[in-house]
């Protein structure tokens, strides 16, 4: 491919599996589909078309629970210990 082709404006590949991704939001049967990566509807894109502009930080969080729920748990635990104590 020449450099001009690789940097040219997004071109549809017109593959039957490369329909615009919007149509694929519908939940398909999970066990029928496999983990095959689909052809992208375009060849190239800029950072504007990725998740990056919206930032990545909110995507992950710590795996433990916030401490403010530990009150309930402490009560439950005391109950349980009382039961066992009997």
């Amino acid at each position: 491919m020449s450099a001009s082709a690789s940097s040219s404006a997004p071109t549809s590949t017109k593959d039957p599996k490369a329909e615009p991704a919007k149509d694929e939001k519908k939940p398909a049967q999970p066990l029928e589909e496999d983990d095959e990566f689909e052809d992208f509807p375009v060849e190239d894109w800029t950072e504007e078309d990725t998740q990056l502009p919206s930032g990545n930080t909110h995507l992950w969080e710590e795996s433990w629970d916030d401490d403010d729920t530990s009150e309930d748990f402490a009560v439950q635990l005391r109950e349980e210990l009382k039961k066992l104590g009997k």
Partner: protein
Amino acid sequence: MQAALQPFREAHALENAWAVAQILSPVAPIDDPGRLYDFYRASNEHMVENDVRSVLKYSKQNRHLKNESDAWTDIFVSYWRAIGEILRAEEASNQGRLRDRQAVEVYEAWKAVATNIQKFVSNGMLPSWAVVCMYSAANHLRVLAIKADEQLAQTRNGATFNAGFQDDVVSTTPKSEKLEDAARVFNRMFALCLGDRNPDMNESRKWGVYYMANLQFKTYFKLKAITLSKNVVKAIEAQSDLPLFELYPKAHQVTYKYYVGILAFLQEDYARAETCLQEAFDACFMQAIKNQELILTYLIPCRLITKHAIPSADLLSSFPRLQRIFGPLVACIKRGDLPGFDEALVAGEEEFVKRRIYLTLERGRDIAQRNLLRKVFLAGGYEDLKEGQTEADRIRKSRIPLANFAAALRMGTAGEGSGQILEDDEVECMIANMIYKGLMKGYISREHAMVVVNKKGAFPGTGV
């Protein structure tokens, strides 16, 4: 034929590789559903070669096309024949009269197109941009090979009288005969791209390397031949003179990172897998929802292992399918709900196994356990303040009776008759394991039946 080839002549004059690749497609464009039919009708078996040749050879305005006319003639003649097979198969299929092996005939006809292009790219009779046409044809070949194999499998199953025992029937022909055949074609094309010696990078076939690599990954994953995928990665990594990875089209980059990430994941190299998958996710085309889901399907278990992190509610809510797969499991990990975790793992087992993430997710149980023990620690409260100490000096109780942990571990299972009652020894063993794995810091005092945790960081990385 003059009119049928006009779009090609125009695209060729502009050296618009993708336009030519689309003209050489076995699928009619959405905005012109009759295109294949029109093209086929423009000639017949006796005349097609002469028809095509005379149009291409006498291209006055386009000197290049004239020089390449032999190559393009062969390609378009094979394309015309392939279209004939496709249209006949389509018609037969619509009438419910698809012959045995008709899909195989389509495959073979299209293979002739793909290998023709490859041949002329290889011997230099086509310009370098034609490599795009080559890999586009290869991509279609993969789809047609899968269809052919499906038809072959149906025919085979129809021939065995007891469908219920079809797995027991020993068949000498491979189940993916045509896809394996296509894989060999892809392998040659890949080598053709990788080994191009043209020093002018603008004209290099090396720009097709990652596209062909990705096509091979897709094929080998479908064939369940993961080792062969690793060979592709090795071949690329051994090739020192490829253009910078970042200069390739994003579609090539992201797909490549996805598959390399999964390969690392399957080898339990979670650090490398995480890097690749995160890069793939960050650079992924935003509207390609399914691809983002696929990346996350592996990235989520990865991050659970490497960073003990879970996807945020925000992230899961933008992907309903992932919410359904991972939501319950993640919630249980966060709550430290072990019975719930086990239940969620069983509920999702089929899907997790299919996606090859079951064993990795199972390791998330440690995190759920850590979170439960951590809650016991927090529930223990603080030491009383000594004389002269202020609120700021308050420290959490670092000696926790083993019985507290045992009680917490039994809480979820008690009363439900699950039979998962843990012996005291087992509780001790579990805590020892947590300490060994570095998820908890401290020691067990058997004498006092106490766990003594580190005053500075009892549960590393969790703020306490």
